[in-house]
């Protein structure tokens, strides 16, 4: 019986640890940021198999981290060889490296898509001073190839002659490759309000406001919807 009791104690301990830590953070939020939510940002809810949540969509042109120079990359953990490749055209010697964990400040754009833009990254959360106009989440920063050439035309795609295809210029950039978490959970009351207000809309035709809270230890959650 002691094995069964030990197993049950483990389940209780794991759940209590998560609930107590999350409860403490949520009792005293450090930042409150008002964001716009569109139907296109939401997943799950209703009859969907997915849990309801707001996706944090980073604008494609915002993926390269602005102002991240060689010392900044070194602080994140990248080696000298990797840093030397940044900003250069990709060649055969470039090998994709494992991404490095970082804290990412995101600011929502005010355009019609209301996507998120990467403002800055830092290895430690304390280095990103909290403000009411942005949110801070964990993320992974990697060195990736950014294609800057025009997309290949259908004609070029069928041209099999040597040199017939448009050659993309692939520039190596430091990019945010993943946000952790990549979406913010909505409780059943919040999702009901948002789904009701954004019913019969697609993409970002209509926007609704929500307040995202940040905790003292890096927690983030949807505090309320309006």
């Amino acid at each position, binding site marked *: 019986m002691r094995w069964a009791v030990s197993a049950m104690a483990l389940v209780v301990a794991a759940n209590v640890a998560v609930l107590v830590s999350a409860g403490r953070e949520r009792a005293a939020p450090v930042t409150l940021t008002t964001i716009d939510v569109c139907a296109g940002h939401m997943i799950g809810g209703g009859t969907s198999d997915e*849990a309801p949540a707001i996706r944090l969509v980073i604008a494609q042109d915002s993926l390269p981290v602005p102002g991240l120079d060689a010392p900044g990359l070194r602080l994140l953990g990248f080696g000298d060889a990797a840093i030397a490749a940044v900003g250069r055209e990709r060649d055969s010697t470039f090998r994709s490296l494992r991404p490095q964990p970082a804290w990412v400040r995101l600011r929502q754009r005010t355009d019609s898509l209301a996507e998120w833009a990467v403002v800055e990254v830092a290895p430690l959360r304390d280095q990103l001073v909290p403000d009411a106009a942005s949110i801070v989440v964990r993320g992974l920063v990697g060195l990736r190839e950014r294609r800057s050439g025009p997309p290949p035309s259908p004609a070029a795609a069928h041209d099999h002659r040597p040199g017939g295809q448009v050659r993309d210029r692939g520039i190596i950039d430091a990019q945010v490759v993943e946000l952790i978490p990549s979406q913010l959970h909505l409780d*059943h009351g919040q999702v009901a309000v948002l789904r009701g207000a954004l019913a019969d809309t697609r993409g970002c035709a209509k926007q609704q406001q929500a307040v995202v809270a940040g905790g003292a230890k890096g927690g983030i959650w949807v505090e309320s919807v309006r």
Partner: protein
Amino acid sequence: MASADQLRVSAIVAFREELARLEAEGVIALDPSTRERIRAHHDATLLALAASGDVDLTAAAARLSAGMRVATLLGTIALSAAYGFFVSSHWGALALPLQLALVTLPPLLLVPLVHVSAARERSGYVAALIAAVAVIAFAVNLGTLGQLFNLPDSRGALLAVGTFAMLLAYGYGLTLPLIIGIGGVGGWLWTLGAIPLGLWWRDGFSVIEPLLLVGLLALAVPSWIRGPVKFAPWWRGAGATALVAGLLMATTEGSLSVFAPSDPRAIELGYKLLGAVALPALVMWGIRRDQRLVMQIGSAGAVLYLYMRLVDWFWDLVPKWLFFLLVGALALVILLVLRRLRRPQAEAR
């Protein structure tokens, strides 16, 4: 894999059949009292082993057991899927306390059920099924808590689920939870390699050296952790699989090494040399210790290693027909070597 009890049953059954054959051929004639003493002793042994519930006394019972194992696995998958789909189909309509109850209570309720079924149904199939569902329910529990509170994924969940599975496996002698437990705890140990490299924990899975260390550790576990005898082959099998998989990956992709920033070609060459020594050593270790699974996994790894090297060296150099002729010739050489290795063993017996 046959347990020690099952091997004993098989030996008794084989002894009886061979004794009857020898008597029929007139090679031996035991006096009735000796034959009766042996029969009585074997009957008592078989009864005692049958009472443990983990053995098949006849070939028909063995076939039924195989069916029960398949049913256990299918039942585990089906029950886990039923639970998962039930949770997801009602999730959006539930308040937080109900959501928490829906994911926290199942593992807590299933553990006492494991205890009761292990006591009432001695074969352990039902207990193994419930235990495996409990482990999956606990994994869903932790994953859902992370989703509810927007927590970053963590290697801690692997450790918690692996430990939970191990507690049920060792507490009730259940193999299916043991396999999940080895995967969970082994996966957790593997990702620890990400810490000194400053990587996110998930990227630890792309570093080979910790996997090799986990493999060595798993091979050593049966000699320093006491538990059911039937667990040892699973530990050694998992260890051998980790070692073989790690070595084969490192020989072809040097960037998976801890030392990736240095020359990947040199790393691959180093692992090719290591593989040439370590894989035959693993096979020999399995043969000397009479550990069939280790020997089989090591042999499969060594053959794969050889074929990969053949592709490296000859694929671009020789015509395709010659390449496959070489592979066929190599297979014949391996057969001859294994036959030579087998002969002294057969003579020793």
